[in-house]
């Protein structure tokens, strides 16, 4: 989509003020890595550039300290490498998350992340705590200002996109971020669905089935849609809100760290790791075009520099396990839609990470077809959000989007089991009711636990919160209260309870653990234990040691049985690396131990292949 020039932006402002009633709604893609904003102009979705002419705003916020205003976007990204602790990127990973959901892996960001148990996650910079909603609001405020400058009118209403697989709490957090930025969020829509709108804009007379494969910086979604003369109906959706290009940056940065540690015999500081991550991201992007790139880190130690060559094959080897994880989601989405790959007309690629040749190869393999790369993977979602804004303003009357709820919604029943009330992939808006009564005489109330997720046990799913259902005291089984769960077009839940006897009804507040009072937050922050890096290093050492033990035992066993089935060079290599791992176990350098474990694991690949072949052979025989 094209940039907007001054002439057309003023005419858009003029036409909006002529018909003042339906004020403008903008479309926003609030991404993990980059964010964009757009508006309808004379019937077309247009993305808006900032004062420097950039449509892509890096989702990075830098706090210079003191009373200075935070920097947002490209200027913040520029200082990230040198001021990692005061610069927040990929905040979307923490939206609507609780302390207990944050893994050690997540905690390894360059800035301080706090929160444990049911507490909301907070980011600490210069001794002040910020919620992920606040950081996101900083990004939204910048987009809003840019749009206001381009459109020459105030902007106060928006459609914001979220990953399709976001749960209720994450959606609410996104809405909250909008409010904090002074935006009335007219609609939350799913990113892959938005991309489908952009794809289908010029195909409104057609009927087709498409899959949208959306691999962004931090999240993955797969959605399957039916396009039927302007009705865009999502059939199924799946995804992973913790999988994206960031993870590829991380493994490549770790590989660079291993190389650097081995070559220069030193442990890697957090600051150095931050520099390696910046370089890893750049190298990864270049390797989509080039076969091999050189990574150089000047002044690693006392004027010493480090440089190393990374090939596309090496990157693919590291990235493959990450990208392969999208396969299960795709297969599930197809199974839920009751479709086979050949029933689809197109597979559309969205998200910056889909530029990677490896991703395209894996998509080709899953869907058995050439993926459609005609959409700009960075912009399609924002264009779709803008189209949805046009639909809501009433300007676009021949398109309608029909989405689904990605996760099953249910309540806890006997034995901690999940009782599904609204199954996943149900078209929204929807509602469903359940009748409750008492199990004990003269019971006054009961507690209802609302849960989202696909697992059978409540404890494996995501708890949205609890509420008390009150009864008029009566013998057991007599009170009857109907509870109605509604999911609106934003995919957000509301609960209505109705006493059947009196006909009284009320909206039930679900106590989300995220919505705690401010003083409560302050107290929790004060008491919360920091994810201290020392502690983490120690735990990693122990974990790596255990892994080393396992792999040594397995290797010895396999060598005893299959030594003669692999070539002599491989035997020698394995023996050498076993010795090296044993030596590393005696040492104290974590990076070396990690490298030794991985290097032995790689060397045992020929042995693993022998075992796999045996299994395949017996599997085939067994099948006959």
């Amino acid at each position, binding site marked *: 989509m094209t940039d907007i020039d001054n002439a057309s932006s003023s005419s858009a402002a003029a036409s909006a003020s002529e018909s003042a009633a339906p004020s403008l709604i903008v479309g926003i893609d609030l991404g993990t890595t980059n964010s964009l904003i757009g508006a309808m102009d004379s019937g077309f979705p247009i993305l808006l550039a900032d004062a420097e002419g950039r449509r892509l705003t890096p989702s990075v916020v830098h706090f210079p300290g003191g009373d200075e205003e935070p920097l947002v976007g490209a200027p913040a990204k520029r200082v990230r490498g040198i001021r990692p602790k005061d610069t927040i990127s990929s905040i979307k990973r923490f939206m609507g998350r609780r302390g207990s959901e944050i893994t050690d892996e997540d905690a390894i960001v360059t800035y301080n992340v706090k929160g444990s148990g049911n507490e909301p996650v907070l980011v600490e910079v210069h001794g002040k705590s910020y919620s992920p909603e606040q950081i996101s609001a900083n990004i939204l405020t910048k987009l809003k200002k840019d749009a206001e400058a381009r459109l020459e009118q105030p902007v106060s209403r928006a459609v914001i996109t979220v990953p399709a697989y976001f749960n209720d709490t994450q959606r609410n957090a996104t809405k909250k971020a909008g409010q904090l930025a002074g935006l009335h969020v007219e609609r939350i829509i799913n990113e892959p669905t938005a991309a489908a709108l952009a794809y289908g804009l010029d195909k409104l007379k057609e009927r087709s089935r498409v899959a949208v494969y959306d691999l962004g910086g931090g999240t993955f979604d797969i959605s399957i849609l039916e396009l039927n003369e302007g009705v865009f109906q999502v059939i199924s959706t799946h995804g992973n809100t913790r999988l994206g290009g960031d993870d590829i940056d991380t493994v490549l940065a770790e590989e660079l760290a291993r190389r650097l540690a081995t070559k220069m015999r030193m442990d890697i500081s957090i600051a150095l790791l931050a520099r390696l991550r910046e370089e890893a991201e750049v190298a990864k992007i270049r390797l989509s075009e080039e076969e091999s790139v050189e990574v150089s880190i000047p002044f690693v130690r006392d004027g010493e520099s480090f440089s190393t060559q990374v090939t596309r094959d090496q990157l693919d080897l590291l990235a493959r396990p990450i990208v392969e994880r999208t396969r299960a989601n795709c297969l599930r989405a197809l199974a839920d839609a009751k479709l086979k790959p050949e029933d689809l007309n197109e597979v559309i690629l969205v998200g910056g990470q889909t530029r990677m040749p490896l991703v395209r190869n894996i998509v080709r393999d899953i869907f058995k077809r050439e993926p459609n790369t005609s959409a700009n993977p960075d912009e399609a979602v924002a264009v779709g959000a803008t189209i949805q804004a046009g639909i809501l*303003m009433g300007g676009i009357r021949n398109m309608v989007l029909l989405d689904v709820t990605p996760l099953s919604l249910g309540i806890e029943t006997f034995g901690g089991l999940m009782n599904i009330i609204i199954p996943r992939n149900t078209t929204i808006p929807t509602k469903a009711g359940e009748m409750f009564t008492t199990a004990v005489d003269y019971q006054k109330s009961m507690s209802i636990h609302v849960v989202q997720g696909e697992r059978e046990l409540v404890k494996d799913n995501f708890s949205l919160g609890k509420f008390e259902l009150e009864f008029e005291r009566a013998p057991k089984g007599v009170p009857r209260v109907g509870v109605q769960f509604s999911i*609106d077009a934003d995919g957000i839940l509301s609960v209505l309870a109705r006493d059947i006897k009196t006909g009284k009804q009320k*909206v039930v507040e679900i106590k989300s653990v995220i919505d705690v009072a401010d003083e409560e937050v302050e107290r929790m922050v004060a008491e919360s234990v920091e994810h201290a890096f020392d502690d983490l290093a120690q735990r990693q050492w122990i974990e790596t040691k255990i892994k080393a033990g396992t792999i040594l035992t397995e290797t010895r066993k396999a060598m005893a049985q299959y030594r003669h089935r692999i070539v002599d060079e491989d035997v020698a290599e394995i023996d050498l690396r076993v010795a090296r791992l044993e030596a590393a176990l005696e040492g104290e350098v974590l990076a070396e131990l990690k490298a030794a474990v991985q290097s032995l694991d790689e060397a045992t690949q020929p042995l693993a292949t022998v075992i796999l072949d045996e299994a395949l052979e017996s599997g085939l025989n067994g099948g006959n």
Partner: protein
Amino acid sequence: MSEPASAPAASTASAFAVFGLEPRPLLDQDALKEQFARATAENHPDRFAHLPEAEKVVAEARYTAINRAFQTLRDSKERLLHLFELDTGAKPRDIMRIPPGTMDLFVEIGQACQAADTYFKDKAEAFGALAKAKLAKTGIELLQKLQALANKVNEWEKGLDAEMAALDARWIAGDHQSAALETLYRKFSYSARWKQQLDERIVTLFAD
């Protein structure tokens, strides 16, 4: 969201009536989908987003009812259950009776799913290429077993479709057998549950 104006729709309201259809066990699914797409184009709340709040609430309630009716009618199990409730004015009794002649299949599916879950657990705990390779044989055998069972369930469901067609023929001739309706509903219920359990594990095995 503020307090919705409309009361929860009574569960006895006919989903068939929403689409102007006669209540019966079997429906032309393609025609139903067409009707739903047309109804969506006309009634989706987004079409009314620029109107005053009161009208938006009415529009959302109207569309939610259409959507619910469609979800009920498109699924054999849900449709039969709804028809039973319309016909008898009551819910089926709350019993868990395994459909006749399916006990063996029931047990077989249960065991295979348990074996798969054990395998997933072992696999998650295995570290390194060698430990994972040792589990591969079990994985391949499990996949074959689960796929064979899924085929069996599909075959069984084809039989159910035939039963449903026969029931439908009797139904439109005026012979409303609510007991047969309930039995068939339960069979579709089991079939859906089994398919879901098997599919979930097959997909996981395929992806690893």
